[in-house]
């Protein structure tokens, strides 16, 4: 399954990157979303996959007995998910604000500050 997910991750990165390269601001946001899914899945996959055995200790037990999924990457991904939620929300507000003041969502029109 790691192999398949590796390709899924690649596809998500590719799709995300492609969307970020579009000229439309809104597409860029969707690209960001895809990219964050890709990164999370990457962490998940590389940290080894274990089916079904979640890192939750049964009531009354002191520890896990069976092979189980690694809890640490899960915690990391959870953090990353929440952060990217915040980022997405902010980016949306920014996009709105930018669209209001620039008058277009065409990123190629937004190059007044560079040269």
């Amino acid at each position, binding site marked *: 399954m790691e192999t398949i997910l590796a390709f899924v991750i690649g596809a998500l990165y590719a799709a995300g990157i492609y969307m970020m390269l579009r000229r439309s601001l809104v597409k860029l946001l969707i690209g960001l979303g895809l990219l964050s899914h890709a990164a999370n899945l990457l962490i998940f996959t590389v940290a080894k996959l274990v089916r079904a055995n979640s890192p939750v200790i049964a009531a009354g037990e002191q520890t896990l007995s069976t092979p189980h999924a690694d809890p640490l990457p899960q915690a990391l991904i959870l953090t990353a998910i*929440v952060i990217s939620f915040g980022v997405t929300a902010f980016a949306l*507000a920014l996009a709105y604000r930018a669209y209001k003041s620039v008058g277009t969502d065409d990123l190629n029109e937004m190059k007044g500050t560079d040269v």
Partner: protein
Amino acid sequence: MKIVSLILRTTVRFLFPLLLLFAVFIFLRGHNEPGGGFIAGLVASAAYALYSIAWSSKEARHAVGVETRMLIGAGLLVALVSGLIGALGGQSFLTGLWGYISIPPLFKVEVGTPVLFDIGVFLAVLGVTLTIVFALEEVE
């Protein structure tokens, strides 16, 4: 103002407390079963978000009762304080301290600063999500 569906509004009224209840449930079991402050906070925000979609952000704000940014502040503060409790006791910052609250023989609950911390997380997530949802809804 466009008229909003009666069916939606009535159903949401019913769902709203249910979702909040569920949030509390998810929160309390989080330390032992899947769940916790984040998810609980998200579910609770979903309740208010739903409310604000069905009614309006104004009424949803009224339902929350406090300025949502205060919730964020409160959440951060609670989390910080939970970390400082251990530190002021001479331990390292964010050290978990545990104890029991019990009313024998009715119940005995284990409480600790990590739970307090999780409350902070809950409040912060709730506050943030609502701040964002309401602000986006109120864009003219």
